């Protein structure tokens, strides 16, 4: 059971072979057993989980099952929930209890899901390794000396180790896809505007998007279907977003007629040879399934990381100004005066990486530099978006590696922020363009998972799901880590 997919669990619940309470207990037991090794969860309230499961069983008995009835789903500590603390893995929000639920949390509750707890993450989602968490680093179940990726590392680690069958993450520059990749699971970042951002603690407003992290493509589609849709209280939630048949898009078993773009900028020298080999194999399998591989170019790819590291910190520097010790959040002891309250509370509350990003953003926006950095980055953003629009004139989806490397060791990159930033080199561009992307397992290098990234035009998650479900049906890369109860 623990390594079952969400849809398998759903089938068993629907068939009356299990109850939500029984399912919840399985995962609560696993969390109790393994979270000490992984630090994937930062808040868990077993009694409350069981209450929800009981309520779900009662609901099913009375009214029948909703879309996610009784299914356990964990959420990243970035989603505001009325139940339990929401801390964004930052000391500045230590013990913060939000007086509201995020829109997606409301959606999950309405669909009957059982919320398992809050997962570990890089502080304020700033990082690629879940090492900047105020609750200590999270670990990769494939090798606990290694990072689970980030920033949604806790969600990835928990799903990979089957501490929960599914989780929500958020993705600003790859924070769903890169951890999914290095933990060997599926992660979907929907089109920007598909899922409401309300109640999700903002990192970079024009880039953030929430999405599912699961053990199968169909599971991702199930959750995406539940959480997507217009929210009149998020002005960037798109009211007339083209609807898609999420589950129907996952029935593909072949790729006949599919044109897959292979961007030369993503297959460069210096890429990990194992990752390269896994990619070549994956693309060959796609061809065998009937797809046509088309060489394409996304000429402004090289500038994406630079543009991102102007835009994201700039937006973040303003988004994080609200943590000023006045209405909520950490306040230092005995402030001398107002400035002391601000500067000391924020010094004590924010970790080093968050400070680094705030300072970078403040600098990029400051007078005399704004045009050279911010405006320029926004122009480059236009060019990157145009690259994709041009490319999609001749192809249906793009396939790339999700990450240039597999999971690295804890501490390996913490001293060199810039190298860490480059972990997101393959995921960032599509956040800038607002496009959907999905990472799914496509092999192992030295026992560590490799991820295959699919990119589609805006609002065409169905094209991604077509390709990914066909690939998944023909391959067998979704594994269970041995040390966490998986079979060899």
């Amino acid at each position, binding site marked *: 059971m623990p390594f079952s997919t969400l849809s398998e669990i759903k089938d068993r619940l629907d068939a009356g072979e299990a109850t939500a309470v029984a399912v919840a207990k399985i995962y609560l037991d696993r969390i109790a057993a393994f979270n000490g090794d992984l630090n994937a969860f930062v808040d868990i309230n077993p009694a409350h989980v069981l209450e929800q499961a009981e309520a779900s069983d009662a609901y099913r008995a009375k009214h029948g099952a909703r879309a996610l009835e009784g299914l356990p789903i964990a959420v990243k500590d970035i989603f505001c929930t009325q139940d339990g603390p929401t801390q964004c893995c930052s000391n500045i929000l230590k013990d913060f209890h939000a007086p509201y639920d995020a829109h997606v949390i409301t959606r999950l509750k309405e669909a009957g899901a059982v919320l398992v707890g809050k997962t570990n993450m890089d502080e304020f989602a700033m990082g690629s390794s879940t090492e900047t968490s105020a609750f200590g680093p999270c670990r990769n179940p494939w090798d606990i000396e290694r990072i689970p990726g980030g920033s949604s590392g806790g969600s990835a680690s928990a799903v990979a180790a089957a501490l929960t069958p599914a989780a929500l993450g958020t993705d600003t520059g790859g924070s769903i896809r890169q951890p999914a990749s290095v933990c060997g699971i599926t992660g979907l970042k929907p089109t920007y505007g598909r899922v409401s951002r309300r109640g999700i603690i903002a990192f970079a407003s024009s880039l953030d998007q929430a999405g599912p992290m699961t053990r199968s493509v169909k599971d991702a589609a199930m959750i995406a279907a539940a959480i997507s849709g217009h929210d009149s209280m998020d002005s960037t939630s798109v009211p007339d977003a083209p609807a898609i048949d999420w589950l129907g898009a996952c029935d593909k078993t072949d790729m006949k007629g599919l044109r897959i773009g292979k961007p030369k900028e993503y297959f460069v020298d210096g890429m990990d040879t194992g990752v390269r080999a896994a990619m070549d194999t994956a693309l060959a399998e796609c061809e065998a399934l009937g797809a046509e591989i088309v060489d394409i170019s996304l000429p402004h790819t090289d500038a994406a990381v630079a543009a991102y590291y102007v835009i994201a910190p700039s937006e973040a520097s303003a988004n994080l100004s609200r943590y000023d010790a006045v209405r909520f959040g950490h306040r230092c002891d005995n402030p001398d005066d107002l400035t002391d309250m601000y500067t000391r509370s924020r010094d004590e509350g924010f970790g080093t990486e968050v400070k680094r990003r705030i300072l970078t953003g403040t600098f990029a926006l400051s007078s005399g530099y704004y045009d050279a*950095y911010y405006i320029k980055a926004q122009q480059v953003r*236009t060019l990157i978006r145009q690259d994709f629009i041009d490319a999609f004139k001749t192809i249906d989806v793009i396939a790339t590696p999700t990450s240039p490397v597999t999971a690295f060791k804890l501490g390996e990159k913490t001293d060199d922020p810039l190298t860490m930033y480059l972990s997101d080199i393959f995921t960032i561009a599509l956040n800038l363009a607002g496009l959907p992307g999905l990472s799914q397992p496509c092999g192992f290098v030295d026992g560590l998972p490799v991820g295959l990234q699919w990119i589609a035009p805006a609002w065409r998650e169905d094209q991604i799901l077509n390709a990914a479900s066909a690939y998944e049906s023909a391959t067998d890369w979704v594994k269970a880590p041995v040390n966490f109860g998986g079979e060899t």
Partner: protein
Amino acid sequence: MDIDVKKVAMLSRIRLTDEEAAELGPQLANIIGYVEQLSAVDTEGVEPIAHPHDIAMPQRVDAVTNGNRRDALQAPAPKTESGLYVVPKVIE
């Protein structure tokens, strides 16, 4: 790139010790140095975008929807008195 990290920290209202400033200064310079590669991109005549999609502003109707939830909303506040937030004296 020489960055006055203390000034940037003050704008950001983050206290930095001298040691932190000494560490963060070069890191910041390194990051800014990296993003300077943007200057090599030809953006002549390119419109900057702030949002990934060209979407319309939603129109909220002017009707009161929120009631008084002061107690719940002030529960996370570090310090309040008689329904007011309390801060060290604001000097104008």
